[in-house]
C-alpha cells in the first residue's frame, strides 16, 4: 500500500520538485543559527546597505543582516504553520468523528458550531486578538508564538471537521464496522482502529493545505503588526519592516515574500501529489 502511494507520488514531477524545495527550506530554517550571523546583532556603521558578499540580502535600518533575519524568520513562520495545523487537526478530527459517528442531536449541535465558526471573519478576529495582546494586561503573551498558533488553529478546523464527518457517516454503515461491533469492540476502538484509517487520505491532503494557509495567515497578521512582535523576525513582520525602505532596499521587500511564496507553492504541489497518490480510485 505504502509502496503504491510512494510510486504514484514520485510520478507527479511537480510534487517531487515541491518536496525537494520544501526540504531545502526546512533545512535552511533548522540550520539558520549555524549558517548565518546573529539576526538581532545591531551595527550602526552598516545601516541600510545593499546586497554584498558579507550581507547577501543587505542590512536593515538598524544594521541587522537581512539574510540572517529571513532564515531565522522561517523558523518561526514554519513552526507556527505546523503548530496551528496540529491544533486544527486535533479539534477538526475529534469533532468531525464524534458528529459523524454518533449522529443525532450531537451531530446537529456540532455542525451548527461549525457553521458559527465559518461566519467569523477570521482575519478580523485575529486582529482584535492581536490588539488585545498588544494593548492590555495580556501583554506578557506578546513575545510568544503559542497564542498565535493556537488561535489560528482554533479558527481553521471547520473544513477538516466536515471532511471527517462525511467519511465517518459513510463508513460507519459498512459491514466491517458491524463485524467489529459484533466482536465486542467499544465505540472508541471502532472509531480509532476501524473508521479513522479510512479517512487518513483526505485528512493528510487537507492538513497539508492547511499548513500553507496558516503560514499565509500568520505572515499576513504579522505584516499588519498584530502577529509575532519584533525584534523576533518572521516572514510577515520582515515585510512590514521592509515597506518604508522598498525604494532603496528592494531585496529586503522581495526576499521574505519570496520565501513565503516558495513554501506555499511547494506545499500546494506536494498536496496535489498526495491527493493523486492517496486517491483510492486512481491509476495504479
Amino acid at each position, binding site marked *: 500500500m505504502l509502496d503504491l502511494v510512494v510510486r504514484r507520488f514520485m510520478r507527479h514531477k*511537480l510534487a517531487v520538485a515541491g518536496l525537494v524545495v520544501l526540504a531545502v527550506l526546512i533545512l535552511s530554517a533548522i540550520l539558520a543559527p549555524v549558517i548565518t550571523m546573529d539576526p538581532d546583532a545591531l551595527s550602526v556603521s552598516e545601516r541600510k546597505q545593499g546586497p554584498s558578499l558579507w550581507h547577501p540580502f543587505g542590512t536593515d535600518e538598524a544594521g541587522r543582516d537581512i539574510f540572517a533575519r529571513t532564515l531565522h524568520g522561517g523558523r518561526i513562520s514554519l513552526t507556527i504553520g505546523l503548530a496551528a495545523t496540529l491544533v486544527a487537526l486535533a479539534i477538526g478530527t475529534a469533532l468531525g468523528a464524534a458528529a459523524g459517528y454518533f449522529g443525532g442531536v450531537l451531530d446537529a449541535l456540532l455542525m*451548527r458550531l461549525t*457553521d*458559527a465558526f*465559518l*461566519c*467569523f*471573519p*477570521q*482575519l*478580523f*478576529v485575529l*486582529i*482584535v*486578538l*492581536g*490588539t*488585545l495582546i498588544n*494593548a*492590555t*494586561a*495580556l501583554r506578557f503573551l506578546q513575545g510568544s508564538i503559542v497564542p498565535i498558533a493556537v488561535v489560528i488553529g482554533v479558527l481553521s478546523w471547520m473544513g477538516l471537521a466536515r471532511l471527517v464527518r462525511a467519511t465517518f457517516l459513510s463508513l460507519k454503515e459498512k459491514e466491517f464496522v458491524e463485524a467489529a461491533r459484533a466482536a465486542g469492540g467499544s465505540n472508541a476502538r471502532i472509531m480509532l482502529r476501524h473508521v479513522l484509517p479510512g479517512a487518513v487520505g483526505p485528512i493528510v491532503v487537507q492538513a497539508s493545505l492547511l499548513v*500553507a494557509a496558516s503560514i*499565509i495567515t500568520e*505572515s*499576513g497578521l504579522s*505584516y*499588519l503588526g*498584530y502577529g509575532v512582535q519584533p525584534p523576533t523576525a518572521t516572514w510577515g513582520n520582515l*515585510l512590514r519592516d*521592509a*515597506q518604508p525602505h*522598498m*525604494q532603496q532596499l*528592494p531585496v529586503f*521587500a*522581495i526576499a*521574505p*515574500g519570496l520565501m*513565503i*511564496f516558495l513554501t*506555499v*507553492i511547494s506545499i*500546494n*504541489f506536494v498536496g*496535489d501529489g498526495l491527493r493523486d497518490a492517496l486517491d483510492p480510485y486512481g491509476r495504479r
Partner: protein
Amino acid sequence: MAAFAIRRIVGAIPLLLFVSVAVFALLHAAPGGPTGAYMRRGSMNAADLAALEQKLGLNDPLPVQYGKWLGRVVQGDLGMAVTTKRPVAVEIMDRLPHTLTLMAVAWGATLLIAIPIGIFSAVRQYSKFDHAVTMLTFIGQSIPIFWFGLILLLVFYMRLENPITGEPLMPAGGVATMGAPFSLTDRIHHLLLPVTMLAAGWVAWYSRFLRASMLETIHQDYVRTARAKGLSERLVILRHGFRNAAIPLVTLMALDVPFLFTGALFTEVIFAWPGMGRLFYAAAERRDYGLLMAIIMITSVLIVLANILADMLYAWLDPRIRLS
C-alpha cells in the same frame, strides 16, 4: 422560495448571536478593554475615567452589558466611535461604498478572465495552454496577497514611469488624485493596481475550479446527446457544458465571501483605499472597540446572507435541487 429564505434567515439568528457573544466577551473580558482608547491618549484623569465607565455602563455585569448592547443594535443603534466621536453607522456608511466598488470591479474582472480560461483549458485538456494555465493557477493560489501588493507598488509606482510626463506609471493609492476634479479615467487609473492585487488570486482559484467542473460535465451523457443532435461544438460547450459547470461555482463564490473581506483589508491598507477594511485596521490601531465590534458583526451578517443567497441561487439554477 420565500418560505425557504425566511426559514434560513430565522435559522441564522442563533448563529449570529453566538458570534456576537463570542466577540463581545473577547473585547470586554480583556483587562483595560473599552476605555483603552481614552487611557492611551492620557487626556483623562482617574475620576473622569471612572465617571465615563459609569456612563457607558462598564461596571455592570458582562451579561447585562451585552443585553444592553444587543437591545441598542436591534434598534439600529450601533453606538459611537470613541475616537472620532461620530456614530459608528455614519463611519461605516462613509466607507462601505468604496469597499463595494473595489470588490465589485475586482469580482467582475475575475469572472471575465477566469470563465474563458477555465472553459478553454478544460476543452483543450493537457494542451500547452492547459499546462501553462495550471502552472499559473498554482502561482496565483500561492502568492501571498499582501506581498503581491507590495511588489505591484515597487514595480508600477517606484520603478516604472510614464514616458511622457515622467510621473510614476501608477498612483500609489487612494481613490482619486487629491484636489483634482472628478474624472472617470483618473478613477480607473487608481483602481488598476488594487483590482489587480485583489483579483489575481481569485482568477487562479476560479479558473482552476471551473476547469475541474467543466471536465466533469463535458463527459456527461446529456452533453453527448447534445452533440449527437448535431449542435455546433460552441453551443454544446457553452449551453450544455458551461451552464451546468457554473452551478458549483456559485456556491464557491458565496463561501469565499469571508476571504473577500480579508483580501479587501490588505488591499485597502496597502493602497490607502478608504474602505471598511482600512477603517477596521485604523480602529484596531486606535483600539476603538465599539467600531471593531460593529464591523465584525456587519461582516458576519454579510457572510451569512451570502451563504443563504448561494443556496437559493443554487436551487434556482439547478431545478434538480429542492430546497427543504
